[in-house]
């Protein structure tokens, strides 16, 4: 703890230098205080804790790298509760506070870098109002270009004006944030413009894993189909990413303008609405390269689904069965939820394996149901055998495998959807 003041000073000054406002700096500092104190108190062997600060332009990231054999991460669960009577629980309280004080946290468990906890605190940005604006005219002649920051804000503004909120990233609500996110490399944008300030459409993408690019759009503002702007945007986007290391592309927020001939339909999810209606939520996909085939791990319970889907999608896969065989597992698992409020949806994935997984999963589902979240998903990565082994626990709790997202994680991801709410909402 001798280094506590120095570490906190480093965190605070880094966050200020990277442009965080004072309220955000204080929240990040609080989170870091708790994590650093927890790690310092947990380690009695004098191991090194490395603290790194990252300027993400729209966020400041602080990463703690450490070496701890008995690190217990269960406090990072949304469902974590503590008893004020338990000393061990009180020790975890700091981590609960830390995880709630930042926008995102992640855990690192890597052979090269060891164990790590990352905390990301975002800058705050003003939301765009939906003030009236002049309608965009049809543009027969347009160029597809990378926008400057002012044009980018205009594009974000038109997008939120022309499309329902579930068809664009929530970040678009703050155009200034989009400018910073593009500067940081989080998003890439191409727009269709006449070069005189008129923005007629655009397409957005970002890398979501080492191998996958996620596309949003294409977005068109009052443009007739005969101008082929959607095709032009998709063509330019594909040429822009053609020689990157991405293996595949996915559009899960496809607008009606998406030219379907460029993509294949991976499948659809049932998306339930608060008014008891539901709609089919299509996932469009495009392989970026020739598929060389890979090996995936799968629990035997999941085999029939995988074999049928891989056959339907014509994917070459060598499926290796795996299951628990009495080996040692940690006590506590950690589940990370990702919310999509406009779609009343939460998507979970496991970031830490543990024997309490069924219990933690059940508690997450109960919390989401109590909050009125209608669409509950769980994703497992078939490149990780321990995740493949979660399939029976998921199925026992009414999660049904619905879709394969090829190469979406380290390997293929299987999306399970919770069916518990279907009777209520159909």
């Amino acid at each position, binding site marked *: 703890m001798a280094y506590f003041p120095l570490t906190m000073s480093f965190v605070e000054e880094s966050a200020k230098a990277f442009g965080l406002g004072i309220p955000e700096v204080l929240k990040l500092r609080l989170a870091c205080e708790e994590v650093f104190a927890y790690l310092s108190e947990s380690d009695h062997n004098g191991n090194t804790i490395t603290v790194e600060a990252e300027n993400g332009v729209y966020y400041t990231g602080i990463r703690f790298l450490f070496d701890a054999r008995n690190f217990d991460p269960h406090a990072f669960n949304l469902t974590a509760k503590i008893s004020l009577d338990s000393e061990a629980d009180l020790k975890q309280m700091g981590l609960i506070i830390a995880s709630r004080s930042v926008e995102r946290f992640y855990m690192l468990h890597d052979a090269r870098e060891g164990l790590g906890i990352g905390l990301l605190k975002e800058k705050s940005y003003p939301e765009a109002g939906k003030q009236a604006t002049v309608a965009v005219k049809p543009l027969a002649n347009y160029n597809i270009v990378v926008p400057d920051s002012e044009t980018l804000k205009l594009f974000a503004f038109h997008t939120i004006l022309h499309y329902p909120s579930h068809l664009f990233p929530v970040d678009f609500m703050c155009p200034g944030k989009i400018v910073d996110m593009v500067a940081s490399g989080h998003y890439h944008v191409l727009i269709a413009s006449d070069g005189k300030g008129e923005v007629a459409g655009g397409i957005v993408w970002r890398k979501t894993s080492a191998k996958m690019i996620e596309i949003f759009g294409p977005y068109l503002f009052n443009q007739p189909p005969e101008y082929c702007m959607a095709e032009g945007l998709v063509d330019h986007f594909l040429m822009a990413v053609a020689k990157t290391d991405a293996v595949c592309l996915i559009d899960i927020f496809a607008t009606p303008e998406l030219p379907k001939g460029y993509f294949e339909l991976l499948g659809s999810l049932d998306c339930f609405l608060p008014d008891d209606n539901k709609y089919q939520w299509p996932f469009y996909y495009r392989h970026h390269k020739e598929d*060389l085939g890979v090996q995936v791990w799968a629990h035997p319970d999941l085999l029939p689904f995988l074999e049928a889907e891989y056959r339907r999608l014509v994917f070459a896969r060598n499926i290796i069965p795996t299951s628990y065989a009495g080996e040692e597992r940690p006590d506590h698992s950690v589940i990370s939820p990702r919310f999509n409020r406009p779609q009343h949806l939460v998507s979970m994935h496991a970031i830490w394996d543990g024997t309490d997984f069924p219990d933690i999963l059940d508690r997450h589902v109960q919390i989401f149901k109590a909050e009125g979240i209608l669409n509950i998903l769980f994703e497992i990565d078939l490149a990780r055998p321990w995740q493949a082994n979660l399939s029976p626990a998921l199925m026992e709790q009414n999660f049904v495998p619905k879709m394969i997202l090829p190469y979406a994680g380290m390997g293929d991801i299987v999306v399970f959807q919770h069916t518990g709410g279907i009777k209520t909402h159909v």
Partner: protein
Amino acid sequence: MFDVPLNNLVPAYIKGFEPYIPSKPDQELMKLYGCDHLYRLNNNENPLGPPAASQDIIRRFWPPKSGLYPSGDSYYMRKRLAEKYSLDPDQFLFGNGANEVIAFVIKAFCQEGDNIITADKTFAVYEWVATFSGFEARLVPLKDFGFDDNGMLEGIDARTKILFVCNPNNPTGTYWNAAKLRRFLDVIGGRQIVVIDEAYCEFVENPDFPDGIKLLEEYPNLVVFRTFSKMYGLAGLRIGYLVGNMEVVDVIRRTCVVYSVNTVAQDAALAAVDDNNHVQATRDLIRLEKAYLREELELLRLQVQSGEGCFIMIKLPVSDTLAYRKFMSQGVMIRSMTGFRFPNWIRVSIGKHEAMEAFVAALKHTLSSD
């Protein structure tokens, strides 16, 4: 065990570089895609294989010769080609396929801050080698599927060292005729090195197609690439060469890796070089099967880009990578073209009739199952 500090060791231009991952061996692919045969129509290989004399050389190769180094600079090959083209043997440099000689040229002329110019949709190795060597690759869009001479000339600046023209172009099959190539070389006026990659030149029968080697005397800044991989069917043995003005080649030789062309490749190429019957038979087969394929594609009303060379490009109404998987599951391997920046196009090599029929059947099935 040490942790290698890769972050500090790796240059930025390598970190951002995408490795090329070749396809798995046929047996592995057949197992993965569940097919019992595979027509390889993805690499523009000669369906007839090597000429008979080369095959004989390969069959009769004396195994103890494997223990000896090959001729380090392909001595007999250079001598033979010099006789054939009435040039000096020292005007030729051999490499482990034409890919290697691309690297020789770039290494010889480019230094930090320099750039090369080529097309955005052509054989990717010029761009790759420049980029992973830390040099800028300026890519000029094709015009009507062909290299844009004016666009390339406009892209030249004080740091431009080499212009690469693929003639005929892989994958579009377009070519610059003799007049256009001369005009281009005249404007360059010897200020930069111009590389004409003639990997597919033996497939072209049109009389206006230029022979780069014949232009060397007039244009000392010209370097011509040729290969034994395509027309001579020796792709598996990796042997290609460049030819140029004596002084230019003398510079390139300084970056040249010797001993990279193995003995069998040299002997097989030497046996192939004068086999005009093989060239004619290959041309006849390509002409016939290309015509058959064009007819079938016309019936399917698909957009086709078919020029010179042993390949055809086809635009599909579906994703080219989905088509690749569907073709593979039917035992036909084609090249998806997104990586060439031609989304939804495929390139199919011209093969024997049986392979072309299999391709057409797979294409029809793919289109009907969409």
